[in-house]
């Protein structure tokens, strides 16, 4: 039988606020355990929450970015369950009246097609703390660090609109691109800034009824997400084809061991007893406040991609790649403007620079080569001062902090020779010095002569110490050889 996969995502996005959702404690990552756990988020008796304005604004900005309805009266509720990383014994979240209503996100697939993925809603909530079970702890004990407790999150809940791991990853990447472009999240997946819960079910192809789904929780990389989906789809199909049924359950996928397992222990007697939180009033948002945020909303990746095509005449492919990353986009635009050569700027940003950053584990913001420096180098390629090959040397030197392009070109004596008189002289010397090669060229069949040019080029570049302008040399060489025929 043919099976169709149905996937829905719940995405937790940590908002890039300075302080927690209900207190003025810092949210910075990696602090010493429990030094950012204030009285409110430790749930000390008598403490009360006051809502962070920036968290509300960021949630609204996300809603505007996906063209969703903004709920002008949203309500926080308490979700009750006991867990040591949940200090109050309930999570303050939204259920019946979330701040962001229905919206939609368009994804681009590898074959060039587009698909709209529905967003059911997005709501504001607080993150939990972290538990550790290993390391220096008394025997049989776990440790609880509540620094992360109270970090503001939006949970984005998609419709079950995805049909493959590829679509799910494209959707996840698109959300990453959107939330980083509007700067409501730092996008640092390795620090847990975006975490994905994946709902997967399968059904016979052509069926419209949904199968029983499982939820795999807390995936924090695209790779793990892809693996987890593929394994889960396979597991469900095998199960059904062997006559079994899929149980609705929560699962955990371990990316290191590649093993997924059911979290049945946590599932027993789940009844979250949601009710409106009496310590918080309804969050009212005025039309004016929404319009103000709309006006200030940074450019979205789709708009940026279209602009790159029209403004810089980039290809769809190049513009798509650059526009999906807001930092890369900003870098590219500086290089393009300062160098007046967008195509070359795009090639260098996407190619050499991206590669080097990736290897070094750095972001565009942390790039050791500044956009201005790269632009300076692109200018020298454009005006034929240096060849592409030399440019790689220049780039390497800039990366090592040896200065800007012109300084390096001078210091290394890399200037390309484009003076036609000088080049003619070099070409003539090489031809004179290699009569056998010339003879061979003349005797070669016309259709195959082109292949023979490489040998001459090598000699010429060697004679010019690599500084000859290759395009010009090519022209002069052809002229001179043709004249001998």
């Amino acid at each position, binding site marked *: 039988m043919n099976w169709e996969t149905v996937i829905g995502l719940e995405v937790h996005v940590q908002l890039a606020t300075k302080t927690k959702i209900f207190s003025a404690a810092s949210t910075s990552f990696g602090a010493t355990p429990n030094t950012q756990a204030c*009285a409110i988020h*430790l*749930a*000390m*008796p*008598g*403490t*009360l*929450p*006051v*809502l962070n304005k920036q968290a509300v604004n960021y949630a609204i900005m996300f809603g505007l970015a996906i063209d969703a309805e903004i709920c002008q009266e949203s309500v926080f509720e*308490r979700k*009750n369950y*006991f867990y*040591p990383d949940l*200090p*109050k*014994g*309930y999570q303050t979240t939204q259920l019946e009246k979330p701040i962001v209503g229905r919206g939609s996100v368009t994804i681009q697939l590898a074959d060039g097609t587009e698909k709209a993925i529905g967003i059911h809603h997005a709501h504001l909530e607080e993150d939990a703390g972290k538990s550790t079970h290993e390391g220096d702890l008394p025997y049989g004990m*776990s440790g*609880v660090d509540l620094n992360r407790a109270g970090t503001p999150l939006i949970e984005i809940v998609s419709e079950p609109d995805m049909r493959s791991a590829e679509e799910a990853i494209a959707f996840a990447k698109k959300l990453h691109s959107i939330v980083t472009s509007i700067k409501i999240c730092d996008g640092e997946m390795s620090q847990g800034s975006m975490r994905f819960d994946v709902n997967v079910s399968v059904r016979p192809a052509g069926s419209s009824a949904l199968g029983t789904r499982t939820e795999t929780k807390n995936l924090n990389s695209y790779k793990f997400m892809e693996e987890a989906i593929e394994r889960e789809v396979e597991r469900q199909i095998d199960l059904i084809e062997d006559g079994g049924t899929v149980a609705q359950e929560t699962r955990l996928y371990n990316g290191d061991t590649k093993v997924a397992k059911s979290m049945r222990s946590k599932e027993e007697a789940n*009844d979250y*007893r*949601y*009710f409106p939180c*009496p*310590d*918080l*009033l309804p969050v009212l948002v005025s039309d004016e406040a929404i319009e103000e945020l709309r006006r200030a909303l940074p450019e979205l990746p789709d708009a940026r991609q279209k602009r790159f095509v029209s403004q810089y005449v980039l290809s769809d492919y190049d513009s798509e790649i650059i526009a999906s990353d807001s930092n890369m986009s900003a870098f590219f635009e500086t290089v393009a403007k300062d160098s007046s050569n967008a195509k070359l700027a795009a090639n260098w940003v996407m190619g050499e620079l991206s590669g080097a950053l990736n290897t070094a584990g750095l972001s565009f913001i942390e790039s050791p080569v500044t956009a201005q420096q790269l632009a300076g180098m692109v200018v020298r390629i454009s005006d034929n001062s240096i060849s592409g090959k030399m440019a790689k040397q220049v780039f390497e030197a800039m990366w090592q902090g040896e200065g800007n392009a012109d300084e390096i070109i001078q210091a290394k004596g890399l200037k390309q020779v484009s003076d036609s008189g000088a080049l003619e002289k070099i070409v003539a010397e090489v031809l004179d010095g290699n009569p056998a090669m010339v003879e061979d060229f003349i005797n070669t069949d016309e259709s195959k002569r082109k292949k023979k040019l490489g040998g001459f080029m090598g000699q010429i570049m060697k004679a010019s110490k690599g500084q000859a302008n290759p395009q010009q040399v090519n022209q002069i060489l052809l002229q001179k050889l043709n004249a001998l025929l």
Partner: protein
Amino acid sequence: MHNYTIAKLIKGLQNKEFSSVELTQHFLDRISQLNDDYNAVITVTSEQALSAAALADQRLANGDAPAMCGVPILHKDIFCTNGVRTSCGSKMLDNFVPPYDATVVENFARDGAVMLGKTNMDEFAMGSSNETSFYGPVKNPWATDSVPGGSSGGSAAAIAARLAPGATATDTGGSIRQPAALCGISGLKPTYGRVSRWGMIAFASSLDQAGPMARTAEDCAIMLNCMASFDEKDSTSVNQSVPDYTASLGNSIKGLKIGIPKEYFSEGLDPGTEIAVRKALADLEAQGAQLVKISLPNSHLSVPAYYVIAPAEASANLSRFDGVKYGYRCENPKDLQDMYCRSRTEGFGEEVQRRILIGTYCLSAGYYDAYYGKAQQVRQLIQQDFSDAFKSVDLIMGPTCPSPAFKFGAKGDDPVAMYLEDIYTIATNLAGLPGMSVPCGMVEEKPVGLQIIGNYFDEARMLNVAHQFQQITNWHNQAPEAVQ
């Protein structure tokens, strides 16, 4: 000195008739002599009180004394006090010493009041008799075989026994007014949002409100001046200016329209109590007030609505007591669930556990709409009753409780009988309205309270009429023989 009102103590301190250190020592002595009889105070902060008193004396000498400078008071043990155990009457918090102050505590410190200690209370404020405290029951100074009322029974009994001239208290369903009535003192529950809830351990967040207890309405006004404030740390605190509640105490009550709800004088009301309350109303009428018959038709639904909403909120509010961050943790837990269950079962008393179970039930899947959803709708009906009434009257009056103080164990086996003790007080909490109780008579040598219900933020008018009542009556000056 212990028979002086706060107003008189402030004058005496300012006129240097006595120092705050003398005054404080006097009350500390009374606590050490008399508290064993009543169990009203569970923590005494003598050293801290005497050094605060010395500081107050300096400020009085320098002439920069704030409103309550040097006046000793007690705080209900539900308010967090920096460095001083805050137990909420529970074994769960028997070892809990908060590193922060409640806003109410800060406000009194700002105004120079001297904290003598913390008062006993029903565990987590759940009770109407003060029998549920981990520290044992409080005894009513008027009759030590009877309850003082609850949950602020320790504060009420302490004032009745002249262990302090004033005390803080909280009211979720009557916990200020009912013990004030049963102990023959004055107590005011302000409008919800008037006094900050920051640092006050939550029972039912949408109903809890702190207020003053003292012997007279004037003293309550002085204390409310200090307690009431807008607090950014409490999202439900209302940003509205605080009037000087003492300024209007002398106003005439001529022409004042007082609504008398027929539902507050129905069966179940003790005849002696009814006589006392009707006499008080007649006294006010004689002063020129107009009595108007009104109806609050949904009154009978307030107790059922309350016993859904309060336990539901409490069930979540008390989840933080899990043995992880502070408070009681059981010995040698065998695993995580065992730690949770035993810490909570050993740390909470029976009534608290019962209310957590009821609240959990009312919120659980399949019952939410029938209970919690319905109760919130009923709450709106009750609110509507009051807003209709306030279209034609200025204040509403009736009995505070159905009968005077009952004997220990009298309502022991039936939680519902105990819950009906708050039948006249609960509706104001559901509606968020201010309510007050002042002594208005004696039945079988036990005090009876007159309840005054005002419109939102109309505390000044309530205090005014209560003060005027106390100008023509002497109930508030009576004291149990043993403590005179």
